């Protein structure tokens, strides 16, 4: 049985004027790490707030751990752990007091589920008498994760857990998620970092409240239909203008120090075109798309579809 199912859920704000989540369906298997990937304002947090019973959907149904999010909201609150995007523990209580408080309201104790949080807690234990508000960003995230885990939830909701956290802490954080998954905990995680997407079992690309694709990171990448090249030359700005003007170009955008370009023609023709345009030090190489490339492609499709609709 799936740990989370979402069927045609829609949510609007401000008396139905703002569409936050638009007819979304997906499901997450037990013990799976499912990533919701999308830019800010895509509707990720709204999905989280509905699944954690903080918001009611306008239409559609959803279940968490087999329980309906509207009817059985009380039971759901006992089996989920939620870590909101914003640090929201008691800043004037110490690390230990926060953890004890959340343990007791769930009718348990730190000792009872210590093995679950041990890996994380040992890192913040030296600061257990420090007030939560005085912790560093990474420490706060670890404490928040501990508090969300202390009652051994079946499903863990992590809303942008690594935003504002340094690269090393981010990596550690994802290692911890892997370990939690190994203990059979289902994890729904959202992020706007595309590089984290590959660490999930499956990802849903979400934009403007719509789910654009759901697949494993590999399948998402394999589904990329065109050939993708990274191109570099001396004048990157003119290169971008020229490539966008090129008739064989499907899509062209900057990506780090390179331009990523998907084309209908082949590498030799592009090189010839660029040489004719007078570019120097041209470097072209075929690359495997990343999740970000897939996302940009879907984004462009969406834009084109919308502008066609407007016409």
């Amino acid at each position, binding site marked *: 049985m799936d740990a989370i199912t979402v069927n045609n859920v829609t949510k609007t704000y401000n008396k139905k004027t703002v569409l936050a989540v638009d007819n979304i369906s997906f499901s997450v298997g037990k013990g799976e790490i499912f990533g919701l990937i999308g830019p800010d304002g895509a509707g990720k947090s709204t999905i989280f707030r509905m699944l954690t019973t903080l918001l009611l959907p306008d239409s559609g149904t959803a279940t968490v751990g087999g329980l309906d999010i509207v009817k059985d909201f009380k039971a759901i*609150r006992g089996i*989920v752990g*939620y870590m909101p995007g914003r640090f*929201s523990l008691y800043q004037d209580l110490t690390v230990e007091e926060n953890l004890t*408080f959340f343990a*007791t309201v*769930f*009718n348990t104790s730190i000792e009872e589920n210590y093995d679950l949080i041990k890996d994380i807690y040992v890192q913040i234990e030296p600061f257990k008498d420090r007030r939560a508000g005085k912790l560093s960003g990474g420490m706060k995230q670890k404490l928040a994760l501990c*508090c969300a885990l202390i009652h051994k939830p079946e499903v863990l909701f992590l809303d942008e857990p690594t935003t504002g956290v340094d690269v090393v802490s981010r990596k550690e954080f994802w290692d911890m998620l892997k370990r939690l998954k190994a203990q059979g905990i289902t994890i729904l995680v959202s992020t706007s970092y595309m590089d984290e997407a590959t660490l999930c079992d499956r990802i849903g690309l979400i934009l403007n409240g719509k789910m654009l694709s759901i697949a494993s990171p590999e399948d998402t990448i394999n589904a990329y239909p065109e050939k993708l090249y990274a191109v570099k030359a001396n004048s990157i700005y003119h290169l971008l203008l020229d490539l966008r003007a090129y008739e064989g170009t499907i899509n062209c955008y900057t990506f780090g120090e390179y331009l990523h370009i998907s084309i209908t023609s082949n590498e030799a023709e592009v090189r010839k075109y660029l040489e004719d345009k007078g570019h120097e030090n041209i470097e072209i190489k075929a690359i495997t798309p990343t999740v970000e490339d897939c996302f940009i492609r879907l984004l462009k499709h969406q834009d084109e579809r919308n502008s066609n609709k407007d016409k």
Partner: protein
Amino acid sequence: MRALRFLLQKEFRQMFRDKGFTGRLFIAPAIQLILLPMAANYTIKNINIAIVDHDHSVTSQKLSQKILSSGYFKLADYTDFDSRANKLIESDKADLVLEIPNKFERNLITDNTQKTGIEVNAINGVKASIGFGYLSGIISDFNNDLRATWVQPERTNPLPTISVEPSFWYNPLLTYYIFMVPAILVSLVTGVAGLSAAFNIVKEKEIGTIEQINVTPIKKYEFILGKLIPFLAVGGVVFTVGLLISWILYGILPLGNIAVLYLFLYVFLFAILGFGLLISTYSETQQQANSIMFLFMMVFNMMSGLYTPFDSMPGWAQFVSHLFPISYFIDVMRMVVIKGSGLHDIRIHILCVFLIGLVLNTWAVLNYRKTS
């Protein structure tokens, strides 16, 4: 109920960890009870008076002497130029100008009548009207003295006069602080308990901890009780501290039963905490809660009969202030502390405040549900 215990534990822990908390709880009431009654003193002294004496006679000097020896007035200037006295009023150095005309004494003796002029600086209305009252009293007294010395008393009194002998019940000397201090205490309890409760709940919203609480199995009523109970305790402590201060500083001991006061205090706290809860459901940030509270506290303080008598307000205003629990508490405090009223005398007050509290709390809980 188990969760409630942990919520309370957490609340009290946070409360005592807040550095300003003990200060707000003990020092603020102490300072306010020491300072405010002095500010709310209606016995006005140090009224600056300028006397323009055009007469320079024995009588005019006697009158000036009498005014100054009353203790209420301070001589700003003694002159015989009108223009100089007017300047003093313009520059706010004089509140009153008494003008004694030329030939004051002679006209009094020959014509048996004379007029004096009083000019009043009405920028500060209270000071002006009270000062004028004092001055007219002194002058009419002076007038009687004159008649006593100059006019031969007739064998029978030609004009029947009614003489009034006032006796002030419950506060024979009309000591202002006996009736101001208990009322100020009410305003204090409202401020410390009601406001803090609202801010406390809004703070959880602002920081986002309420989200975290909402996904736990903690029930709504447990959360609300967990917020209200600590402030019932805080209200009780502030009230007790206030009673002690007013006993030590002003020697005010409630004439009535203290248990009646505490009973009413808790009915009142029930209502005012409901009000705080209601405000908190309508505000997202402490700033919002603060500005709403500021508005209401202003109105409460001005309209509840704290400074100005309740009965002098127009009918609609009296109706409005009957909706404020604080008006009832001020009334009850004065009744029980000064007059020694018992439970039976304040039963209507208790009922009204309880009903108001019921409405406020129900409204707040309904609104709280709707928004989450």
